[in-house]
């Protein structure tokens, strides 16, 4: 059954992005806005806008019942959660299922399986996907038995969530008992789940992730990989597809591993399987699976020519016909995230009103943004202003186009990381390609 009306439970650039595809498919859109977003660009693009609450996310974009009520009352047959907010909350997906609304994403139980990091690890192992040596620890005795086999340094991680909370690095095994207590307390406070597990610490690695689309019936295709190794405190800054300096056999192994996991889960919709890759050793390890559309999905769209949102909607409607043969990687694409933050003040968010917004255009250039002149950047949400994506026949051409695009971009009224990003693109190590996740830290150490 084709979708007629989609409720968009998100904001910012991804809301604008979702509306664009819905419009091209002749699907009506209803957008949820908080009071702070009433006059946003997506609010002017949607067919209908409903104000769901005050600016604070807890009072608006995180209110599952309010969003479902709004979707039902405005005659929508599906909800697209975008990324962040409620996109990976199993309870929200379940509420949609119970109310007869199509949740554009995986099933609630699939979200649960991937949200529990230990279970995700177990599923990956069962699918024959390599994981970082480690395992669950239920007690200090468990930990003291497992740790020597892994060797120091090692990581204590929270089962219930990521983002660095509940995570502790143990340099010497004598520190283990104290670090274990601290990690469990932190995890309990952050996720309401004090369970932790141990993993060997892999010091040098690249972050490479595989985009997959599952049909929900055990079938899945991959849309190639993305390298997102340029990160600052686990926040990605630059992404590209394909991943540079990766031997063809290793690339194929990554794709196959991601597909094995997706097929094992009978995964439905768009998902991303993240790996830590040791390119020199030719080894890789499963990190986690993100059960949603990613911020960096445009680089994949640029090299495949596919519309991932349209594919998500087709799967949700039970009409997907995508096969692996349809997926052809052409050229290279790179993306820079432009954030309202001040690099001079430790990347402090910089909310305010945008007084000037000149985004680039030109051959191979795509801009995904919700920001124009006069747009407000409310203090309640993430600081992403937009994404500049460049495509070219080769990495060199794509990189040149991206550098030119950034050079002509002007954002005024708020601080941005534009200059910082320009510096990164010109860095000799990045120009060569294949930097690891320590790139940014080592770079700032040299400056």
């Amino acid at each position, binding site marked *: 059954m084709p979708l007629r009306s989609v409720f968009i439970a998100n904001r910012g650039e991804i809301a604008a992005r979702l509306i664009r595809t819905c419009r091209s498919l002749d699907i009506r859109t209803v957008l949820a806005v908080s009071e702070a977003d*009433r006059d946003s660009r997506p609010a002017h693009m949607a067919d209908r806008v*409903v*104000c769901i609450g005050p600016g604070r996310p807890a009072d608006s974009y995180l209110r599952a*019942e*309010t969003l*479902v*009520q*709004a979707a039902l009352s*405005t005659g929508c047959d599906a909800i697209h959660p975008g990324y962040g907010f409620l996109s990976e909350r199993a309870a929200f997906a379940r*509420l949609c299922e119970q109310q007869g609304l199509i949740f554009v994403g995986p099933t609630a139980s699939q979200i649960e399986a991937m949200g529990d990091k230990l279970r995700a690890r177990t599923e990956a192992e069962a699918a024959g996907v390599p994981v970082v040596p480690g395992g669950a620890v239920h007690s200090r005795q468990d930990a003291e038995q497992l740790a020597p086999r892994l060797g120091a340094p090692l990581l204590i991680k929270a089962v219930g969530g990521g983002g660095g909370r509940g995570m502790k690095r143990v340099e010497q095994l004598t520190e283990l008992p104290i670090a274990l207590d601290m990690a469990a307390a932190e995890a309990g406070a952050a996720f309401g789940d004090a369970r932790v597990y141990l993993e060997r610490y892999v010091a040098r690695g690249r972050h490479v992730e595989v985009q997959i689309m599952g049909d929900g019936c055990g079938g899945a295709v991959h849309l190639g990989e993305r390298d997102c190794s340029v990160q600052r405190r686990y926040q990605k800054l630059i992404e590209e597809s394909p991943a540079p300096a990766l031997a063809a056999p290793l690339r194929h192994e990554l794709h196959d591993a991601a597909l094995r996991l997706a097929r094992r889960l009978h995964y439905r919709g768009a998902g991303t399987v993240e790996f830590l890759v040791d390119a020199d050793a030719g080894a890789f390890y499963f990190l986690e699976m993100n059960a949603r559309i990613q911020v960096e999905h445009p680089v994949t769209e640029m090299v495949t020519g596919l519309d991932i949102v349209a594919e998500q909607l087709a799967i949700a409607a039970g009409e997907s016909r995508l096969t692996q043969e349809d997926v052809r990687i052409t050229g290279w694409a790179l993306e820079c995230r432009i954030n309202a933050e001040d690099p001079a003040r430790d990347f402090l968010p910089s909310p305010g009103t945008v007084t000037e917004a000149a985004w680039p255009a030109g051959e191979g250039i795509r801009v995904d943004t919700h920001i124009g002149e006069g747009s407000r950047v409310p203090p309640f949400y993430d600081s992403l202003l937009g994404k500049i994506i460049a495509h070219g026949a080769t990495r060199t051409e794509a990189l040149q186009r991206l550098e030119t695009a950034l050079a002509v971009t002007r954002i005024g009224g708020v601080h941005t990381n534009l200059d910082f990003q320009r510096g990164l693109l010109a860095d000799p190590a990045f120009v060569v390609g294949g930097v690891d996740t320590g790139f940014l830290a080592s770079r700032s150490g040299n400056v």
Partner: protein
Amino acid sequence: MSLNAKEVAEILKALEASGFDTLELEMGGVKLSLRRSGPMTSGVAAPASTARDAAPVLAPIRSASTSAAPASTPVAVPPGTQAVTAPLLGIFYRAPKPGEAPYVEVGQRVAADTIIGIIEVMKLMNTVRAGCNGEIVAIPARNGELVEYGEALLFVRPD
């Protein structure tokens, strides 16, 4: 014979899906009295937990009339009045239950704690209070329809 919690839940579902507002059921010494969109009355033989789950929860919500910007609501505020706005998004009901008299009418005086309607969010009933003292000049919000957060429910000429 008696009804178990599961059977009561089934009956509730049937009532919700039906066009009826009330249901009276007597069988084998059990008397069940159910009513849509209103508080439960006496004579309920269902287990306490089921009755509590099924009964609409009336949670008092302070009116956001002073904090919401009137300019952002589509309805223009008549001169000399102030809007009482929806403190949350949901379905607005002017009366405690279908067929009953509305909580308030145009011309009526309200005090800050006067209940002016109910907003339903996923079967959860929230009472809305006027939040100000004065006389009701108009009621732009329609019964049984979606109201957004900050939308004008009624206009009051303050004292």
